[in-house]
């Protein structure tokens, strides 16, 4: 097959053309547009000026949304890790015949509509939702407590969306560990817990870090959970972009915020790739 060096390019050309024309060029457009000027009449004027970026950093309003986004992303990562590691470890160690089905069940939410999963929390956290209903039936409270439309509710929605990604990443990493290593550690006198701490845990860290990166990046770009489960103060950066572009039609400013978000994510992913390698994530995703 070596005599035809053009063949792979022929096979690749449709995909490359599509991604180049529909992704690379448009994203470059966003960057270019972020330097344009928006006339008071609402027209966009080609220019090269930093006004849109200056506007973003002019006062604390916009940067605080960016910081909120990063904080929520960090909180979501930590909670995902706490909730995800143990089930992943359970899948690794269990010898139950039900294991394939239990794993299928974890993957099931991937297939369920994101908007349905998000709004389903209204039935749980709302004023007449499950929790308030149960608490009132039990007599703990006399009127509903506000569980919805705050940051906690947003994080609930995010967790439900992202937990399967975390569990899968950790599981794939755990599954690659040779079980005889823990046996060896135990035969040398380690307790079960010591064997886990000294052998299994360090070897599962690649999966842990891959899961953390994926959850962090996906949270940073999230739009729906703050929109549906959050209150007025819970906007994240994606909501801001949507409002500026679709709401006020301020394309240059919307482009500038998009560029800021994208730059931030590129820096994070690039740094990660430098030290950890990004392929682990792609390999894991292909198993899902």
């Amino acid at each position, binding site marked *: 097959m070596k005599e035809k060096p053009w063949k*792979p390019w022929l096979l690749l050309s449709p995909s490359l053309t599509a991604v180049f024309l529909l992704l690379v060029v448009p994203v470059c457009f966003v960057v270019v547009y972020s330097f344009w000027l928006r006339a008071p009449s609402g027209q966009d004027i080609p220019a090269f000026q930093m006004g849109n970026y200056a506007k973003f950093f002019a006062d604390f309003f916009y940067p605080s949304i960016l910081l909120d986004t990063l904080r929520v992303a960090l909180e979501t990562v930590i909670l995902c890790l706490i909730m995800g590691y143990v089930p992943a470890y359970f899948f690794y160690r269990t010898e139950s015949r039900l294991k394939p089905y239990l794993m299928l069940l974890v993957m099931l*939410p991937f297939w369920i*509509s994101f908007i349905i*999963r998000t709004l389903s929390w209204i039935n749980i956290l709302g004023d007449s939702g499950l929790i308030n209903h149960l608490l009132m039936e039990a007599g703990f409270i006399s009127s509903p407590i506000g569980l919805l439309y705050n940051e906690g509710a947003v994080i609930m929605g995010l967790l439900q969306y992202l937990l399967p990604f975390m569990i899968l990443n950790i599981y794939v990493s755990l599954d690659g560990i040779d079980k005889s290593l823990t046996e060896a550690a135990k035969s040398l006198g380690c307790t079960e817990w010591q064997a886990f701490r000294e052998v299994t845990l360090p070897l599962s860290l690649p999966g842990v870090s891959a899961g953390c990166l994926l959850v962090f990046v996906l949270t940073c770009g999230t739009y729906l959970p703050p929109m549906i489960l959050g209150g007025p103060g819970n906007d994240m950066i994606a909501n801001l972009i949507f409002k500026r572009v679709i709401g006020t039609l301020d394309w240059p400013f919307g482009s500038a915020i998009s560029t800021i978000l994208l730059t931030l994510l590129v820096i994070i992913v690039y740094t990660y790739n430098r030290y950890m390698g990004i392929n682990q994530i792609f390999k894991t*995703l292909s198993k899902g």
Partner: protein
Amino acid sequence: MKRFISGWTLIKLYTLFVYIWMFTPIVAVVILAFNPQQFGSFPMEGVSFKWFVKLSHNSTILDAFKNSMVLGSLTAVFSTAIGVPAAMAFIRYDFKGKDFLNTLLIAPIMIPEVVLGVALLLFIRWLQQPKSFALLLIGHVVLTLPYVLLIVQARLVGIKREYEEAAMSLGANPLQTFREVTFPLLAPAIFAGMLFAFTISFDDVTATLFWATAQHQTVPVKIFGMLRNSISPEINALGAVMIVLTVSIPLAAGYLSRRFARGSA
């Protein structure tokens, strides 16, 4: 050993708790869809199908459903049509810049949908084209292509090159080799890729909110609009339909592929 057993019990309980946490909201949607009350909330007062009946008479939802089906199917076809050859190129050939291009084609997974939405819409605006069904379709193809690539590549790695080389040495040309050898072996992955592309397209909200025109609304975008005036039993009913639909498709596909695999073995 005894200590380990109690630790293991804790792990099992913890996992059980995570399952309960994950599925309670989803189950609640399905249960509340049968609540006859005006407000879709607890407590349940009887069981009724009236919201499903009401739903089946809602013509805007039915239109959106049709749009979603057509869009999802076309996205699945186009996405696999361009994704499968690309996967072949990456797995079967060596060429310069391979790793870079592979990362480039999979990168859209990591780009926020909001940015993709703005970018494509801005580009279309610059070309002075109106929003259209075509925009929605090409947008969804870009969104789903990385997943198709990942799934098909993962499968291709497992198909031995020797099979193809054997066919070639017996006189088959590359096209015949693909048709008679590679394609049948790859078919389950192509099918899985199509299913995944369909589901992603069918479920997508954020990017679709940017690209959809008033005539070409999809079901999730419609639900998003309905949510503006708080949650209603009708939304729960629609959610229940969507859950049953999107869950049964992969389960049925998994079952069928297992049966076929057993049949051919």
